[in-house]
């Protein structure tokens, strides 16, 4: 249910029809665009940046709350909206604005799907080395959620690849930051601010990334381990040996059963690079577990994506890498009676936990995970949860001493609280 009087919505919808054309203003069957069980009063499909900005201004004029939506793959990873009137859909904004293969940069509209961008880049032997979950994930959504997958191991997160951005503000203005060159320190690093801001500060309309070459050779092996400790030890040892590891996920037995078909602790590693280096890395990795890791087809990473698509309840812990295996062991004990898929990008200190069963004691798990994470100097983010649970926890973690700066950033950039109100950390 939208939170506002129908008259403002109707006035806004009329204005939106002028901005985008009536065929792009949706007023029925809006459940599709519900966020945490809150259904908007209208959905708008702008074609370009100017229409986004005009739509935001119109919404602000009528005191309506807007949530930008891309592929909605990571939309659950935020607090329940305090208000939600307008769904702003970026689906029509999917152009590749510029691709300079020799410069290894690409500029795309926010609504472009990463999978489409990657297919186009593959023809040039290039890619954006990000592999977040969700085939529908858009560039804008990935930036907003700072979403990442196993490539985090070698390639960091979206902030490390984003070199330029254009955004629309709720006062109807648009601004840019960065540019199209790979090295640039002109002005504040606004790209860093927008990455991970979950649509609470501005609406991303266009992004420019630097690109990486697709490695000439790649091979994936699954190494069975006796315990999470052994898996984490091998992951860190491979890092320290400088082996050509591109992805490296420590899988719990429940996760391994789904991903590699064997219910034991596993380390799933992709080795990539030039041939001689790949060969040696494979040999040394195997010797680290004192056994023979089985080579797997690349599709095993697709299985991984399916296994870790945010489900009924998904949690992500961020810890010091040295604390990962202890935390996993304790979590596994805690969850004993509820077999849970766990996957950890050990060297980045990331632990994902995915639960399909709907009877899980979710709140107890959040509390346990948070206290475990805090003891290990980290924190836990809820990526997906039933909205009744989300009502009484802050899904993004516990606010710290820097929250006042964040609040002032929100007030400065979205002074009338139009954008995704209540969804951010501290319910900003």
């Amino acid at each position, binding site marked *: 249910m939208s939170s506002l009087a129908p008259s403002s919505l109707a006035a806004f919808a009329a204005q939106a029809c002028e901005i985008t054309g009536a065929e792009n203003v949706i007023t029925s069957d809006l459940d599709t665009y519900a966020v945490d069980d809150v259904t908007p009063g209208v959905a708008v499909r702008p074609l370009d940046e100017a229409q986004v900005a005009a739509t935001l201004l119109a919404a602000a004029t009528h005191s309506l709350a807007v949530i930008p939506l891309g592929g909605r793959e990571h939309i659950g990873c935020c607090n329940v909206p305090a208000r939600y009137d307008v769904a702003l859909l970026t689906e029509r904004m999917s152009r590749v604005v510029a691709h300079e293969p020799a*410069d290894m940069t690409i500029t795309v509209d926010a609504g472009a799907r990463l999978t489409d961008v990657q297919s186009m880049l593959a023809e040039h032997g290039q890619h954006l080395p990000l592999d977040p979950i969700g085939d529908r994930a858009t560039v804008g959504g990935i930036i907003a959620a*700072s979403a990442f997958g196993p490539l985090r191991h070698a390639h*960091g997160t979206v*902030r*490390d690849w984003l070199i330029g951005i254009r*955004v629309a*503000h709720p006062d109807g*203005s*648009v*601004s*840019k*930051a960065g540019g*199209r*060159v*790979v*090295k*640039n*320190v*002109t*002005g*504040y*690093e606004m790209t*860093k*601010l927008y*990455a991970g*801001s979950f649509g609470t500060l*501005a609406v991303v309309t266009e992004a420019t990334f630097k690109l*990486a*070459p*697709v490695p*000439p050779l790649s091979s994936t092996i699954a190494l069975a381990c006796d315990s999470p400790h052994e898996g984490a030890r091998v992951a860190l040892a491979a*890092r*320290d040996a*400088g082996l*050509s590891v591109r992805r490296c996920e420590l899988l719990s037995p429940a996760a391994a059963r789904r991903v590699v078909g064997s219910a034991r602790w596993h380390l799933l590693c992709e080795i990539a*690079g*030039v041939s*001689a*280096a790949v060969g*040696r890395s494979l040999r040394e990795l195997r010797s680290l577990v004192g056994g023979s890791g089985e080579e797997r087809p690349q599709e095993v990473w697709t299985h991984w994506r399916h296994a870790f698509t945010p489900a009924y309840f998904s949690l992500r812990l*961020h810890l*010091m890498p*040295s604390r990962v295996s202890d935390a996993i062991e304790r979590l596994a004990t805690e969850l004993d009676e509820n077999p849970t898929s766990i996957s950890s990008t050990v060297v980045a*200190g990331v632990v994902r936990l995915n639960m399909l069963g709907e009877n899980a004691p979710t709140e107890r798990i959040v509390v346990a995970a948070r206290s475990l994470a805090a003891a290990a*100097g980290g924190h836990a983010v809820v990526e997906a949860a039933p909205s009744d649970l989300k009502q009484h926890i802050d899904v*993004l*973690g*516990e*606010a*710290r*001493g*820097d929250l006042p*700066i*964040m609040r*002032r*950033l929100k*007030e*400065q*950039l979205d002074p009338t609280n139009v954008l995704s109100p209540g969804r951010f*950390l501290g319910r900003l």
Partner: protein
Amino acid sequence: MTVQEAVPGGRVTRVVVRELERALGRERVLSTPEELIAYEFDGTIERGMPQAVVFPESTEQVAAAVRIAHRFDVPVIPRGAGTGLSGGAVATIGGVIVALTRMKRILAVDPVNLTAVVEPGVVNLDLSNHVAPLGLFYAPDPSSQRACTIGGNVAENAGGPHCLAYGATTQHILGLELVLADGEVVNVGGAMRDVPGYDLAGLFVGSEGTLAIATKITVRLMRLPESTRTLLAIFDTVDDASNAVSSIIAAGMVPSALEMMDRNIIAAIEPVIHAGFPLDAEAVLLIEVDGLDESTQEQAGVIDAICRKHAAREVRIAVEKPDRDRLWAGRKTSISALGRLYPNYYVLDGVVPRTKLVEVLRQTYAIAAKYDLDVANVFHAGDGNLHPNLLFDERVPGATERVLQAGAAIMRLCVDAGGSITGEHGVGLEKRDFIAWIYDEPDLDAMRRVKAAFGTGANYNPCKAFPTHKGCGEIHSGRLPRTPAADGAEMYV
């Protein structure tokens, strides 16, 4: 959207100096003209006289100094080693310089999680040397790394040759303890990249001392590579060398460094360093690959072939450290060696898309010729980051003006080629006048709002980075006649 603020209205009177002395101890405050002269400059030709320089040794002392400056509404200018190349540490309208050089402790090193916590005054290379016995290093390596501080690197988001593969400073900073303009101490980021909320650490890096002073910095360390190979490729034309750069990048190679030096640089360094650079070559490329031995061997082979395909006269490959160091010695001393050619040089810092290198370099030479100047190029070719050095003698009437005009023309050239006015030195004072070529009013307004959110007010490093304050406009890149320093209750700006 518009937010604008005035420059600080207060003055650094004797009263302010006494308060600083009381709070920090007299031995940590300089205020006589003779003492202050050393702090009038940084690495640029900008100048501006502070009325006091303080040397805090703790976060509490930084906060105390900042609170006093805040109370009297006077500018605060954070300063590291003073090696900056955009005027970021120059007290352009006077004020209190907070020199962080005495805060130089390495507080913690975590070799498992690959982090270190340092104070801002730690010298860049000292950190790498400190962790080398553990097989670790700190990747950002600006050419001034023997002198520049981590705090200054954070302020400017400093780069260096190896940021081609490893990224600039921003990719190596995890957490910061900050002193805000009112003296409040806040921690942002942490011991790992992911912390709840907005990426304030990412936002802070590169803010050029305008948002806060970092008093503790958590950095990411990296494992030293098993193998490194350095190639020196010698070319008879700059075009061939530039084309080789584009081909190396386009071939999917990821060298850790890819540097170019032109004939004028070679002429300056070879007689000093004896690196074996042929004096009749028009350009040399210095290319480094690192990683597993198998990997560097194969990549070096591919790069060697590409260079030869682009008519490299000769390619040398150094594997052993002394041989590699000899090749790098030429690069690392190149700018200071320019003093052999001319008494003064002015180093620019533009960025262009890598495919535009050939064209932009040609036009750079043409612009220098038009202004009757010699230019020497030594730069990070792999990421399109140009450093043309305009050579001159400031004693020749009109020479400095010609240099500034040529510099502006080259910056404009970079912007017109789709590039940027700074890749790693920062905007500072030097390029404030050019920022409007890159950013429109709404772009700058969003940044001003960020500044407002940090509660910085007018105090922190006024008139730097982007045109924020009313009253800064008439200051022409700070090249003012020296202003008399503090004495008595006189005012000085």
